């Protein structure tokens, strides 16, 4: 008996859309997905007209809700979807644009737009502050292979999970040089793995785009970092992707 294909949609709020491009870069593997599920909404691929009563088995949402329209769309997608998955750092933990929250946001706005011009200056929030999120797929951008494993899990009815090791472990397995030992700031010991330690491959310390790992030993890392860096320097790096907000 032929079962009905799962219907999935991809939705972008305000973002760079890099997560969508990371998925497209899966090439034939991404298009092959269409044999197993029905991709009903992917704005880079089609110009279909979507009805508001349309339903999705899974909705993937990326980006930050930064306009009235973004917030409305997010709430609407939540109603349309059985399962809502936040993908990428922005939707997961606030991401790069969330840096605004660590300064005077009015001042920053005026620096860019010089005064009140009727443009929104909302707080940059992860999507679960606005709607219920069923799963998160972290990363800036999302790791496309992890996305594939995740969705294939959902197709066969498995409740998917993300690897809960720290990036540090993935880095060591691959035998990359430890930048922390060289004296650089690296959040690898406390950041959730699943990225294949891709930054460390290029000798760039981890800045925590995937959020905190379970049971992250934050104090140990901070103690280590304080040997060579000021608190100000450490905090600045914790801010970039929003890890700082997760520490309390």
């Amino acid at each position, binding site marked *: 008996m032929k079962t009905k294909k799962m219907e999935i949609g991809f939705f*972008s*709020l*305000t*973002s*760079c*859309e*890099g*997560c*969508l*491009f*990371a998925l*497209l*870069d899966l*090439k*034939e593997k991404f*298009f092959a997905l*269409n044999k197993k599920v029905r*991709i009903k909404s992917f*704005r*880079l*691929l*089609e*110009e*279909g007209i979507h009805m508001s009563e349309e339903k999705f088995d899974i909705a993937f949402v990326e980006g*930050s*809700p*930064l*306009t009235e*329209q*973004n917030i409305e769309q997010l709430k609407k997608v939540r109603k349309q979807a059985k399962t809502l998955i936040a993908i990428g750092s922005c939707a997961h933990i606030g*991401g*790069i*644009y969330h*840096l*605004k929250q660590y*300064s005077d946001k009015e*001042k*920053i*706005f005026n*620096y*860019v*737009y*010089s005064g009140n*011009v*009727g*443009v*929104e*200056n*909302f707080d940059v929030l992860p999507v679960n502050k606005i709607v219920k999120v069923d799963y998160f797929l972290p990363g*800036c*951008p999302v790791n496309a292979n992890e996305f594939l494993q995740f969705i294939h899990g959902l197709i066969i009815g498995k409740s998917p999970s993300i690897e809960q090791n720290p990036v540090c472990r993935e880095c060591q397995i691959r035998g990359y040089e430890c930048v922390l030992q060289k004296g650089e700031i690296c959040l690898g010991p406390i950041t959730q793995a699943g990225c294949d330690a*891709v*930054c460390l*491959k*290029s*000798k*760039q310390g981890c*800045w925590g785009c995937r959020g905190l790992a379970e049971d992250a030993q934050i104090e140990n890392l901070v103690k280590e970092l304080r040997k060579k860096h000021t608190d100000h320097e450490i905090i*600045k790096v914790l801010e*970039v992707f929003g890890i700082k907000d997760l520490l309390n």
Partner: protein
Amino acid sequence: MKTIQINHIAKTEGHLSFVGALIDGDFAQARIETEEGARLIEGILLGRKYYEAPIITSRICGICPIVHNLTAIKALEQALNVRATKEVLVLRKILLLGQWIHSHALHAFFLSFPDLVGINNNLNLLKKYPKQSELALQVRDWAVEICRIIGGRTVHPINSVIGGFNVEPDFTELEKLMEQREEILQKAIKIFDFISARRLPKFQRPTNYVSLKTKNEYAYYDGDMFFSDNDQTVKVETALREIEEIILPYERVKRVRHDGRAIMVGALARINNNFDGLNANAKKSWEKLGIILPCYNSFYNIFAQVVEIIHCVEEIESLYSEYQKMREKSGFDSRLKVNFEPNPGKGFAAMEAPRGILYHEYELDRAGNILHCNIISPTTIFISNLEQDLEQLIPQLKKLSDVKKKVVIKTLIRAYDPCISCATH
């Protein structure tokens, strides 16, 4: 007065809508509205360290993160008095050209070409033109791989930093990829022949075409700014001082004017201004169109992009052979990155992004904190020109049905390849 509104135009980078009106038959108004929120990238960089800028600004755009990364690096290297080595420059150029190819291949074939054959959904495009889609995907994948090997990842580069590259791009991988370059070139030419057999809408509107220009090459990494309306080449810092960024009420995208006029940047502007610098196969392909330059039909931006894909593959070929020779010389490893200490200074840089001139400027204090940042993206520059094109196009469409009118309007908007994420930043 008859208004035309198109909400949520798909198949563009970032979200936008169109609002237009035909007033008394021959006069129209047109406006592009962005639906992306303001991310205030320039503002959030204030007070942050100089080395964060290439990482943070690459998050402006997921399709062209490399050119933001490289332009930020080039501007910051000027501020920090860092001189990149020849080895670094060659790798950066290959990386940038890889960025052009994959961005153009996606846009020309998968976002704009469907408009020329009346297909709404790319999954149908793959079914109707499987062979050609496969060619376009193969060319794009080849370029995506270049970006992955040199940049460390396909989206948001990691390996490309101020001073050069953290690690040498895996040479075995690069070598294997480069073995395919002749094959990729032939595929790119086939795509051009296939796409350019389609008729583009008739349209003519001379405007001011602006691009970088250098004597040595089809400018993309370096050069002064060339303005076609007065035939002048001006230093980037002077040109940018003359450029006005205008903030309109309720508009998240600023508008750009030069001497009070809209300007056009991107593939068509570059071909109009720098045709002589194109490589042989690229030139030959454009000449098949039989169009006399300058070309004033903005729809031709689609064909211009495919010509540039051919040019880029040829250019990568010569850069790669230069790189191979450099790699053989002793001390190569040490020339992949220049060391430096932070110092106060100002820096600015312009590069040709796939969609046209991209400009970054920074000012740093003694400790390397960012005191000032300004970014002007190609879509910000050309959006006024697009609006003016639409104002001329709409009266020409009087006799068409509303549905057909909208199709032509969307075809023109997409032909420009607007990147609303970049424009809003």
